[in-house]
Each structure stands twice: as C-alpha cells, then as structure tokens.
C-alpha cells in the first residue's frame, strides 16, 4: 500500500458500567452537563490520548462511529415536551439530538481541531471510523486522530430490534478509541508504538436494508489484504463482529471462510463475552495488534444491510519498510 505508514499509539475503552473511570476522567462541569454517552466518549478519548502521550491541537482529527448517537437524550427531549408542553423543551438537550454530539463534546474536551466526522451505521460504526481514519492518515490528509465509536442504546430500541428478529444480539453501551498517526510522526516524538494498520477496505454487500446476505463473496477482505501486501495465510487471528445475532454471525463466518480459504485462523469476538457497541472496535484493533505476534491479524465486521469492513493489523514490532 502506498502512502504513509499508520501506527497505533494509544487506546482507551470505557465500558458502560465503569462509573468509577468516568468520575476520574471528567471534570465537574462535564460530569454535571454532559449526557452519559458523551461522558463515556470524552473519557475514552482522554484515556487513548494519555496512553499516546498526545495533546489536542489543530492537527488532531476525530472520527466517531455510532449506531444510536445520543438517542437517550433525544427521547428525554421529546418526553419533556409530551409531559410539559412547550415550557418543557430544553435548549440544553436539543443539541444532543444530533448524532455528532459525542464528537462535539470530545473535540471540545480534548481540543481536537482538525476535521471531525461522525459515521452512523448499525453495529460496525467503530470499525468504519477506524478504517476511514487509517486511510486519511495514510493519504497524508490528517496527521493524527482519535478513531473509534460510542453508543448507548435505549432499552426500548433494543427490545424492538429483538422483536423484529434481528437476533439475540445484546447491544451494550460504551465508548472506545485508538490513536492513529503516521509512523514518521510517532517516531519523531518518541511515541510507544502498539501496532500498525497495514491495510484497510470497506464495501457494501448486496443485501436488502437491515437484511442478512445469502452470498459469501466479499471484496473488502481481499482488498484489505492486497493493500497490506499480504495473503490469507499470513493472518494468524481474526477479530470478528459476532454478536449473538445468529443469522448475521453465520453469514460473517461464511464470508471469512471463503475469503481466507483454505486457511482457518482462529476467530474471536469481543462482543460475545460482553455486549456489542461501536466503541468495541478500538478494543478489537488494540487486541489484534497485541496478538498479531510476528504475523498479522484481521479485524473484520459486517452489519445487517451489508456494510463490511476489513482492517489488517500488525504487531508492535513494526515491520521493515
């Protein structure tokens, strides 16, 4: 793959139940005024930047993937109106009804002043944000970024998905980021390198909206491997987006089997022991870098509706150019 080499220099994950972490990472105003999903996003961003030893400025970009945005606050905004009429409407809550509210809060908190993007996609927003960010660093469009995702699904929505037959998946809440920057920049500032993203691709599979595909042919995996100059045999472990949604999980297995055949590297999913949210992608990428050893790891995600993302990750012993 031509362009700059993209390394991972920090990671931060906040689980939805980690209230102690939140109180440690937020100031009083943030703890009082920000919604919970914004608090988690800010905290995860701070953790990742702290590990990377990086401060915000006009060269720090931000890419946040999300499925639900701040739907919890949106529902509250509407409930206040339905209960109290026009006087119940909150000017403070209204901005939270726009999905970029987590990015906005985080940009302010960490002073990230380069571009800021929020990408909305069911279940795989974090992977898409990281792939997009890696491509932007590689092309030299941005120098450094926080990339990951955040979600806090309202209970009502999750239950409706379940009733709709979207599987037994458990959507959880949390936020997570990795810090990505060019290898040259990381070396110049003496940063510890956790791993390298050596290839990434994202494509749409031909599937009806919200559906699961029958076909098993995909282009994203092959293109990510090709851009990494790698082959299926080099992949030692795959971090998948398996989430307990049976038909979707089966489809993902079939896509991977065909794309990596005849090789069958072990597959793991961080969603299954906990619950899936857009921030987990950062955990998958960090874990992939940690477990890649001398080989490569693949982070793969596919959503109902057909969004497919493949990210090829190398370990911290950065390979020779």
């Amino acid at each position, binding site marked *: 793959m031509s362009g700059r080499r993209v390394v991972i220099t920090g990671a931060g994950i906040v689980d939805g139940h980690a209230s102690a972490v939140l109180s440690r990472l937020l100031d009083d105003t943030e703890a009082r005024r920000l919604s919970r999903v914004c608090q988690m996003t800010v905290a995860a961003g701070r953790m990742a930047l702290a590990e990377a030893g990086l401060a915000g400025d*006009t060269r720090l970009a931000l890419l946040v993937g999300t499925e639900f945005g701040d739907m919890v606050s949106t529902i509250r905004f509407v409930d206040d109106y339905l209960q109290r*009429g026009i006087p119940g409407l909150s000017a403070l809550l209204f901005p939270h009804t726009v999905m970029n509210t987590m990015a*906005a809060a985080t940009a302010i908190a960490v002073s990230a002043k380069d571009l800021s993007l929020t990408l909305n996609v069911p279940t795989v927003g974090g992977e898409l944000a990281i792939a997009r960010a890696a491509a932007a660093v590689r092309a030299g469009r941005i120098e450094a970024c926080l990339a990951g995702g955040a979600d806090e699904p309202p209970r009502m929505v999750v239950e409706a998905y379940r009733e709709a037959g979207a599987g037994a998946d458990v959507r959880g809440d949390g936020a997570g980021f990795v810090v990505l920057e060019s290898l040259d920049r990381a070396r110049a500032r003496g940063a510890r390198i956790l791993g390298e993203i050596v290839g990434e691709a994202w494509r749409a599979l031909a599937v009806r*909206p919200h559906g699961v595909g029958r076909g098993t042919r995909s282009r994203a995996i092959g293109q990510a491997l090709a851009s990494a100059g790698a082959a299926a045999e080099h992949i030692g472990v795959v971090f998948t987006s398996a989430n307990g949604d049976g038909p979707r999980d089966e489809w993902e297995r079939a896509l991977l089997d065909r794309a990596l055949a005849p090789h069958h590297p072990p597959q793991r999913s961080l969603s299954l022991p906990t619950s899936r949210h857009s921030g987990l992608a950062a955990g998958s990428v960090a874990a992939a870098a940690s477990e890649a050893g001398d080989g490569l790891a693949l982070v793969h995600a596919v959503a109902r509706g057909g969004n497919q993302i493949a990210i090829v990750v190398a370990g911290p012993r950065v390979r020779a150019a």
Partner: protein
Amino acid sequence: MKPVAVTGLGVVSPFGAGVKPFWEGISGGVSAIRPLTLIDTEGFRCRIGAEVPDSVGGSPRRSRADRLALAAAREALDDAGIGRGDRADTALIVGAVGGGMLEAEAWYWQRARGAAAPLTRVLASCFPSSHVDVVGSGLGLGGPRETVVTACSSGAASLAMAADLIADGVVSIALAGGVDALTRICFMGFNTLKLLDPTPCRPFDRDRRGMSIGEGAAFVVLEDPARARARDARVYAELTGYGMSTDAFHVTSPHPEGEGMVRAMRAALAEARVVPGDVGYANAHGTATPQNDRIEARALREVFGEGGLLVSSTKSMIGHTMAAAGTLEAVATVLALGHELIPPTARLENTDPDIPFDCVPRVAREVAVEHAISNSFGFGGQNVTLVFRRTG
C-alpha cells in the same frame, strides 16, 4: 487534492423535484418559505418553513426523508448517465441528521397516547443510516457506503468524503449528497434556542432575526476526470479542494472570531491551489441568525479581505435544509459557475454594515466566475468549505 469532475446533479427542494425548478427558483430570487403544514406549530413563536411540495412521490412505506433522497439520487445518476453496469463499484456517501425521525416522532406521539403500532417498522428507517441502505440497494450501488453526520455541514462533508475515495483510487465514481426532512424535534429545538425568525429569514440584513427551517435532498455524481473525459461526459464543474475543521469551542455557538471557519476556508483554497483573489463568489452558510452571519462575514473578511467577493445565501429562499443544505448549496454554486449567474440573497433590503461584501440583494447577477466556494457550518463547530472550478 486531485480535482474530481461533477458529472450529475439531482435535487428535491422546496421548489419541487428536479434541478430545473431549483435553479429557476433560486436564480429568480423566489422565496419558498411558507406556513408549515407537515407538523403542528400551534403555540410556537415561529410557524413557517420551506416544505417540499407533495409531488415527490415514492412508496408511502418509506420515510419522507428516504423518498426525498431516492428521488434526488436517481436524478443525479440519470443525469450523469451512470448505468447499472457502472454502479457496482460506485460509492455512496450521504450526509444526514434527522433520518426517518418525522415518522418515528409520529409513532412516539401515538405511543404516548397509548395507541401505537409496533415499533419495528418505524425503527427500520428511523436513523440517518437508513438512507444509504435504501438508496444503495434501490439503485444498485455496490461501492463503499457511508453516512456522515456533521450536523448542518453534513451535506458538504459527504462531497469531501467522496472526493477522498476517488483521490485514493478506491472508486472512480461516487454519488454524494445530503438529505433531511422536516422533523418536530428540529422545529421545536430551534424554536427553543430562539434562532427562528417568525417571518421569512433575511440573511445579511441589518434587521435579520433568525433562520427559517427547510427540507430537501440533493446529490451530485463525482467522477475521476479522466474517466469522465473518456466517456465524453458533461462536466458541470470540478471540485478542486475542500477544507474541514472543528472549532472545539462550543456545542451550538461558533467561535466568536470564526477561527475554525478561517482554517477550513484556507485549507480548501490551499488544496485547490488557488489564492483568495482567484475566487469570485462565496455561497455562504448564511443562516440569517444575527451571530452566525456576523461571524461568517468576519471569517470571510479575514481570508478574502473586504470588497471583491460576491456573497449570497441560498437559505434566503429555501430556508436551512439542515443536512441537505451543504449539497443543495454546492449544486447552487456549480450551477452559478456554469450559468455565469450568481443567485441573489432574497429579501435583503439593508445590508448589515458589519458585513462588508456585496451580498447580491434580491436580483441575480450576471458574472463569469472561475472559482467559487461553498461554506457550510454545523453544531459542534463543524466547518466545511468546498472549492469549485468552472469548466468548459
């Protein structure tokens, strides 16, 4: 940035479906801002906006926003002559905010009264990502699909993201655009922030009192210029650069000095390899709120100096169409370059002395301009500037 060719346009606006009525409306200085009918406005200070007329069509099973998006996307692809065979590798980037919230709100209102249907059908199209699924599967687009949410600059950000995919060689064709239907949440929220003018908005006027909301959708086909030339496609203009920045200052208010806006404009000009003096026209964000217009003018003055630049606001005619605004205004900019006609700022009677530009009051201006910019700014301090170059 490697320039990309604009080879197709599609619009659904408060002037109706199609690029033609849109251009006739905005070049004629016609206001489409009227009393709202889609939502209950009883008791609110502002009760007007710019609605898309009923003639859009599409399946009533789809959300209004999905129908707007599909109609505009189809027109853009047909206009560019992108057939089924080319679509398998065409990227789709949509800027969106409200998704199918208009229908979700109706469901939620019913639920509060204890009479709601099952949630599942509403949920399927409630989020902004619904549009890429509906447009992508409906029109057979098999390249990367992304939904970009940068608040009111989403429609402009989508073009920037699409241009990146072409520049990186990921695809050679991309369909990019923005869409938003009116929603109760948007209407109530901007009323609550006291940002809406009870009368049709008057950008840049010294007596302006706020914005008018609107709805619509617009898409453009962006294409690798070599590919466009090879197939002898009509090229409306070239997107030669973009700049994106974040204020990191306040969730709803722009930086008072317009610092982030300045960075976005300068980055866009640098990418396009033009100097400020090369740019003849700025399609401004121009919301008509007292603060935003003043700060945007300050940023424009910082980058371009006082005088020379023509500045106008499309929102003076179609209101602020939220996530669609950035693309509708990009289309307006492209058409202005091609027609050598700068659309006016409607209802502008007395230009604010703090805005030291010719804001093209009420009547379009015949001027041949080589380079033009389109500014879009959003909640969260999300700034996007696009640079277009005339072709032909």
